[in-house]
């Protein structure tokens, strides 16, 4: 029972992280229907920027965190401006190959600058952040994850509900042509959605780095794990991404705990194939898929 509860807590924390990184992915897909295969590399870039700012530049953690987020926001903006905008309206294969190429480029850049080794952040989370419920221990990194994800969920909820930019983004996601004809600056919305997605990705990269250490290969493979999450939750549902993330996180930790640790990494993809065969639009997605 104890083991079960411990796995449950860990699974929910990891799942929330998956959910948050999937949220950025869904945001891009929703507004511009681009599948971003470079999401894991964005995650890794954020984690490595933060690493450099903390260890090389010796900045205080809060300053480094904010600087990284600003940097990733700008990076997302630039990616959209220089790489994605020329391809608006092009065929699916070109856009997919572009993001695959971006992924390879970023990965190469990271390997060039930081190398392929495992780096770790200096300990900066206070040990008092660890939580203890009876016999269940929640490590500081996990409770930080919990706090950060809840804070960002609330922030994004408010952004999409209240701010005018958020409402523009929702309108573009709902119906691009109608939004365009009502005077929404669709290109700005595309750029903003990439910027926000990069910001969210870098944040989840930093938290993953705190939990697992910073390594290009691990972080970029988490970018691909976004796919089971978004398919499970529905490709165009932000709330679905969070719930899908939690389900996948729980599934992973339980498989790792009860069955075998090696099966842990492949279970999400088996689930992915199963869902695609049974319910391709996911739990909360818009039902509009065509069958061949």
């Amino acid at each position: 029972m104890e083991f079960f509860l411990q796995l449950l807590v860990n699974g929910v924390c990891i799942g929330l992280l998956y959910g948050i990184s999937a949220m950025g992915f869904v945001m891009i897909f929703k507004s511009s229907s681009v599948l971003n295969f470079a999401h894991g590399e964005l995650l890794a870039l954020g984690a490595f920027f933060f690493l450099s700012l903390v260890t090389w530049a010796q900045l205080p953690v809060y300053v480094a965190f904010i600087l990284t987020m600003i940097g990733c926001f700008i990076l997302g903006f630039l990616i959209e401006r220089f790489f994605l905008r020329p391809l608006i309206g092009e065929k699916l294969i070109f856009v997919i190959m572009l993001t695959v190429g971006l992924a390879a480029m970023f990965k190469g850049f990271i390997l060039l600058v930081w190398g392929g080794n495992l780096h770790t952040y200096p300990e900066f989370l206070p040990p008092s952040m660890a939580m203890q419920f009876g016999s269940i221990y929640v490590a500081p990194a996990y409770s930080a994850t919990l706090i950060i994800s809840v804070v960002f969920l609330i922030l994004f909820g408010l952004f999409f509900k209240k701010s005018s930019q958020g409402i523009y983004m929702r309108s573009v996601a709902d119906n691009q042509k109608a939004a365009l004809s009502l005077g929404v600056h669709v290109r700005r919305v595309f750029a903003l959605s990439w910027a926000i997605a990069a910001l969210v990705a870098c944040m989840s990269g930093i938290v993953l780095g705190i939990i697992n250490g910073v390594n290009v290969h691990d972080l970029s493979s988490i970018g691909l794990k976004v796919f089971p999450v978004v398919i499970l939750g529905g490709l165009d549902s932000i709330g679905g991404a969070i719930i899908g993330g939690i389900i996948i996180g729980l599934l992973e930790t339980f498989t790792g705990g009860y069955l075998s640790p090696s099966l842990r990494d492949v279970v999400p993809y088996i689930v992915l194939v199963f869902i695609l065969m049974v319910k391709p639009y996911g739990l909360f997605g818009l039902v509009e898929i065509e069958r061949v």
Partner: protein
Amino acid sequence: MKKLSFHSCGNYRETYEQELNIFETDFGRLWMMIFLGVLFFVAPFVLSPYMLYILNTIGIAAIAAIGLNILIGYTGQISLGHGAFFGVGAYAAAILATRLGVGFYLAIPAAGIITALVGMIFGIPSGRLKGLYLTIATLAGQFIIEYVLIQWESLTKGTMGITCPLRKYSAGR
């Protein structure tokens, strides 16, 4: 005398044969012949072993790309799991050669057939899905095949890999 063909200044193709034509112009055919001649009759005697190794790698990648061309180019199904089939073929050939002692010329086509069977299993989703969803399904297939190849240790020797018996082509080297 035969009339030479040049690139037309538009798309005037009328039949599927014209669409699939590899050499659109006679010059293209000529240069390809010259290239192949140089590649097979000059290059092996002139280039260093390392350059030959690179040329071989190019050729191998080209064979794999032909498979991808059939999928993406002719049928419009984007596959991101192509590398997994590459691996299945390699493992099939290696297992046939080391475990069963099958000869080189039999092992290669047999590996192709085995990979085709595996491809049929992973092609099932393509009967139901299209576009983005199919792309994601092929990505999942890649991970599942990779997992099976690494974890089925009794057959594939896991991460150790299998060393193929090298066929001696030249006694001199």
